[in-house]
């Protein structure tokens, strides 16, 4: 039922004195003041400061010196590690995003059943995603150990000689992709909620029309899940571009810069070498890349994302 056909009693707002309007506005600002102050001081302020610093040279001690576009030129022309970091991050994103989403969707489909104890399984699959940071990174260092790690031991059972993982320039990035799947639980929960929101009548109608399991998934489940999938694609891409903690703890960008991700390279310039201006420029470039990718996805979403209640295109 659309809003236009609903019955609403409309109350004509009585003409209020001007002073009362002003007092209401002040009241409103007063209530949002804590958040507003925090936003200005800790978000917008640093945003603007970092934008200005991206055009300056600053090492925390001396006053900033204006450099114009020099940092942006250096990124593209005189910093091979920047290019390497961008490549490593793009590599990780390209493999991490689809594998995470597929793993989350498959698991959500499996867990979308009314079975005794299903809640336990849902919890178990979700738990790893709330374990983050340093502890997880150290755990995975052990799992990826060449001689004694769980992963290579499991591969040995199958008769496969496991690679050096974190000690190999070829396998270090795939190791991070594998490790990142550990956290699919958050995405799985979103998909689970989405699956439970798909009307049963649609499945029944599809069955009546003779659709099998695969067709039901393709023609009913996926279109109805498309808003959730779109959301998770956007958020996962944004998150994957910012991978830092695991690389910092596990490999520190090695071996041989194979896991030198963008955020780690930025961190080094900012906090190890005091190139605050250059690091700010890197941060703004990353912001632009993520912004462009998000806009592209939003643009393309019109072709495949279905919102119930929208007028047909």
């Amino acid at each position, binding site marked *: 039922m659309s809003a236009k056909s609903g019955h609403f009693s409309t109350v004509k707002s009585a003409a209020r004195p001007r002073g009362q309007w002003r007092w209401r506005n002040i009241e409103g600002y007063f209530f949002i003041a804590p958040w507003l102050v925090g936003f200005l001081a800790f978000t917008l302020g640093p945003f603007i400061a970092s934008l200005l610093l991206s055009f300056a040279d600053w090492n*925390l001690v001396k006053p900033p010196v204006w450099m114009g576009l020099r940092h942006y030129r250096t990124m593209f022309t*005189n910093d091979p590690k920047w290019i390497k970091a961008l490549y490593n991050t793009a590599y990780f994103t390209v493999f991490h995003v689809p594998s995470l989403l597929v793993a989350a969707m498959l698991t959500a489909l499996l867990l979308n059943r009314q079975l005794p104890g299903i809640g336990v399984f849902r919890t178990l699959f979700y738990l790893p995603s709330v374990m983050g940071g340093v502890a997880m990174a150290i755990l995975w260092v052990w799992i990826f150990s060449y001689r004694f790690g769980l992963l290579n031991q499991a591969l040995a059972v199958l008769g496969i000689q496991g690679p050096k993982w974190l000690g190999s320039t070829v396998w270090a990035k795939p190791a991070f992709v594998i490790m990142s799947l550990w956290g699919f639980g958050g995405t799985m929960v979103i998909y689970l909620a989405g699956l439970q929101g798909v009307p049963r009548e649609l499945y029944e109608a599809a069955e009546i029309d003779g659709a099998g399991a695969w067709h039901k998934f393709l023609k009913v489940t996926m279109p109805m899940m498309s808003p959730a999938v779109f959301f998770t694609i956007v958020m996962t891409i944004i998150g994957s571009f910012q991978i830092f903690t695991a690389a910092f703890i596990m490999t520190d960008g*090695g071996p*041989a810069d194979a896991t030198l991700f963008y955020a780690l390279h930025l961190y*080094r310039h900012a906090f*190890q070498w*005091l190139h605050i201006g250059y690091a700010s420029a890197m941060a703004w470039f990353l912001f632009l890349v993520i912004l462009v990718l998000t806009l592209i996805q939003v643009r393309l979403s019109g072709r495949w994302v279905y919102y119930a209640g929208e007028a047909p295109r």
Partner: protein
Amino acid sequence: MSRKVTRRELLRVSALVGAGALLAACQPKIVEVEKVVTKEVEKIVKETVEVEKEKIVEKEVTKVVEVEKVVKEIVIPAPKYEGVTIRFMSSYPITGTHPRAEFMQRVKELFEAKHPGVTVEMERVPDIDVRWKTETAARTLPVMLWDANMFCEMAEQGVFLELDDRLEDHPEVNLEKDYVIPGGAECMVYHQGKVVAMPYILSGPVMLCNMDLFDRNGIERPPDDWTWNDLLDICKELTQDTTGDGRIDQWGFNGGTTWDENFTQWIWTAGGEIISEDHKHTLVDSPEAKAAIQFYYDLRFKHNVWPRGEDTETMSVAGITNPFAAGKVGIQCSNWGAIGAFKAFPDLNYDLLHFPKFPGNDKRYHWIFMQNFAAPSWSEYPELDADLVIELGGPSSQRYAGRLKIQCPSYKKAIEEDFATPPPENARVILEIFAQYEVNHLPIFTGKTEWCVTVFGGELTKAFIGEVDLDTAIKEAVLAGDRVLASY
């Protein structure tokens, strides 16, 4: 007629009450301070003094005179500062049984005894590289333990407090006469002719040999004038599969690759340099430097006498974090701090060796890396901070550091009488290094950290983990290193 309170009114009143409560809670606490005032007291003491004996031919006269003596008895000096706290920051242990912690606690106690009313708050900061930069930007930097990588850069920018005025009150401190300040490290102590830091400790490379491993294999301790070829022969003898499982589990040598410290001793001994004098060019591709790096590389990849990454990882998983102390490695290229660290391994029978000579070259070189203490120029209590710095680096503390064998002290007497003493048996090697080698500080220049991480930790390490061949690694190291140097 009772009037219903609206939600808006309830929220308005709650917000006002909350704001009032917050304001009340933020009132400064009024604290009663008990003031203890002491003053100098003059005290009269009666003292009987035997003055003189007069010997006269006929009689002896002894005069005993009672003298009233006025004695100034200082009870407790009235404290100049009351309730003042000054801060100190370090990445090393501050509390516990670690030698560095013992050193810090002793300095704290001595300083606080000399400065009643003042408390020294010592903080261990593991992420000190980020923390000191943040505190510098915020102008809250406290007295700190520094190393050479960033100190001189910061000194150039006037970050540190001049100590000359306070040093006048400390005649026991004579930096020029009594301290070792290696060539190239002047900026760690002086800036524009003024003293801005007190030297703390010196680190340098040291060759250690596991005497039990040597004895088990019938190998004698090498002579002082041994060469790289002798080192290789000994390492080959010590590298064995002791368990018979087809895998080497005992190696002749172990060293590092990630920093300039790991390469410089080899390159200097071969007659090369790592960087040009003007700090504009990376020189690891000179023939001498290449020869040195090639020898070092071959220890691992040609002669297999140095454990590789997976071997170290295997040992680490098996709980062996120090292969030398665990008897898995015969010769360890380490630094002077190992001497103190090995006090934790009382059963370890090890000794010091001279660094082997480059075949055909009798001249010996030795790098040094200095740590120091300094206070910020914007200190709220410059006198106290300066006194703390002087206490930390002064002769008494230097001697204590020498006895603890944290690293080599900078105070000459502490080196001779405290640090360079057994154990190990041949601790005299330390003194002979200062006497016989050309000792210089590792190069100090702006951008050094980034350059080291790029050249040694980055490009050269790629070869030492087997990812690229050595020639390519050296070429890339020079290109990348020069790029970094050009950006500063």
